[in-house]
C-alpha cells in the first residue's frame, strides 16, 4: 500500500512540475515580435467592444468554447473558431479616427508543447479620403492566457504585466505584412499588444510601419 502511495505522490509531483515547466516554457518568447520604433511608425489605439464569435479564452483555445448568448456566437460549423470585430481606431498622436474590421481565426498550427495558442489576424483598415489597407498577422495569446490563469488560481484578479505583446511569427515563420496599393504602408509591417485594464476595459494598440527605403545606389 505504501509503495502505491509513494508512486501516486511521485505521479502528482511529476504532473505539477511538468505543468509548471510547460507554463514557464521559454520557447514562445522566441516567436514574439517586439514593438516597432521610428518616426514613421503609426500608433493606433482601440477598445474591443463590437465583437462577435469565439472568445479568445483558454477553454476556447482548448476546444471548449463558451458561447454565452451575449457573445452572439457564429453557429455555422465553419465559423465556430472565428471572431470578427468592428472597431474605431484612434491615432495616438493626432487623435484621427479610422475604421477597421478585424477577423481572428484560431491558428492551424497551435501547440501546447510549443506554447503557441495563436490566432491568425486579418485586418481591413480605412480612413476617409485615403486608400484602404489590408494586413495579416499572427497573435500568440499564450502569455496573457497563462497569466490570467495564474491570476484566477491566485484569486487576485490582477493581471501581472501592464502590457502583453501579441504579435508573433506566423505559421511557416511568416512576419506580419501590410498590403495597401497606393499607400506608403504597402509592404510594411504591423505589431499589436494589449494593455489590460485591471478591472476596467482593456486597450489594444496596433502599430503600422512602412517598409524601409531601399539603400541608395552606390
Amino acid at each position: 500500500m505504501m509503495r502505491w502511495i509513494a508512486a501516486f505522490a511521485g505521479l502528482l509531483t511529476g504532473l505539477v512540475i511538468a505543468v509548471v515547466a510547460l507554463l514557464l516554457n521559454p520557447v514562445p518568447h522566441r516567436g514574439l515580435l517586439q514593438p516597432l520604433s521610428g518616426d514613421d511608425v503609426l500608433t493606433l489605439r482601440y477598445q474591443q467592444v463590437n465583437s462577435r464569435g469565439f472568445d479568445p479564452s483558454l477553454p476556447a483555445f482548448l476546444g471548449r468554447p463558451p458561447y454565452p448568448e451575449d457573445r452572439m456566437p457564429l453557429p455555422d460549423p465553419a465559423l465556430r473558431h472565428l471572431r470578427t470585430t468592428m472597431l474605431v481606431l484612434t491615432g495616438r498622436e493626432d487623435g484621427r479616427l479610422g475604421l477597421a474590421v478585424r477577423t481572428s481565426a484560431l491558428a492551424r498550427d497551435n501547440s501546447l508543447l510549443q506554447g503557441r495558442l495563436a490566432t491568425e489576424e486579418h485586418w481591413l483598415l480605412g480612413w476617409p479620403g485615403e486608400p484602404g489597407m489590408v494586413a495579416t498577422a499572427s497573435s500568440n495569446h499564450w502569455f496573457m492566457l497563462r497569466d490570467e490563469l495564474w491570476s484566477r488560481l491566485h484569486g487576485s484578479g490582477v493581471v501581472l504585466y501592464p502590457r502583453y505583446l501579441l504579435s508573433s511569427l506566423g505559421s511557416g515563420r511568416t512576419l506580419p505584412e501590410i498590403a495597401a496599393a497606393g499607400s506608403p504602408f504597402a509592404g510594411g509591417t504591423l505589431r499589436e499588444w494589449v494593455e489590460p485594464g485591471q478591472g476596467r476595459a482593456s486597450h489594444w494598440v496596433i502599430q503600422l510601419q512602412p517598409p524601409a527605403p531601399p539603400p541608395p545606389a552606390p
Partner: protein
Amino acid sequence: MLARTMARYYIGGFIGGLLLAALAALLWPLPEHHRFRSLIDVLPNGGRAETFVIRWPQDRLELPGDFLVGDRVARAAALGLMVLEDERDGRVSAELFRLRDSAGNVIGVAARMAIAPPAGARSTTDWLLVIPSRGSLALRQLDSRDLAARRISRGGASWASPALDDSRVWAGRSRMTASAGPVAGMRGSVLHGNGEFRGMTGRHTETWTVDERLPDGFARGRILIETEMQRSSE
C-alpha cells in the same frame, strides 16, 4: 530496504507524471476549422476560378453592443454596418457578411470597406474574404458608383448601404456590376492572399442581383464575387 523501494516507486511515479503531462500536451485535441470541399474550376490557362456568394439581408452579421465615438461615427448594429465621416464629408463604411461558396455553404466571413471621397464621386472598395480553414483573400476595386453607406431616414434606419438596402438604386433593373476597375472589363484586382491564397494574383467581378423588392423600400438579393486567380509564379 523499504526506503529504497519507496524511492523507486516515487521516482517511477514522478517520471510517469512527467510523461503523462507531456503526452496530454502533445495529444490534446486542439480545435480545427471545419472545411467544406473547395469548389474551384481550373481555367484553360492553368489558373483557377472560384465564385463566392453573399445573400442579403440574411448574411449580414449583426454585432452586439453599442459604440459611439463623437458624432462622426455611426453604426447600425442590426445591419452589421459602421460608418465614419470626416470634416469634408468623405466617408468610409464597413460591412460584415457571412461568405458562402457557390453551393451555398457558409465557409467564412466577408468584410467590405468602401471609401468614398466627398461630392458623390465613385467609391473604392476593399473586400476581405476570410475562410478560416484556408486563409484570406483581399480584393480591391473601383466601384461603378458611390457604394459607401449613406444616411437615409426610412423604415427606422438611419444609415444604409445604398445598393444593398435602398431600392431606389434598383429602379428598372435587377442586376448591377458593382466593380468597375482597375482591370479592364469592369473587374477589380486581387490585392493580397494569405494561407492557401498566398502568392495569388488575378481579378474579380462583383455583381449584385435583386431577387425580391420589399414594400418598405429594401430588397433581398445576392452578391456574387467571381474570382480568376493564378499563382504569381505560374
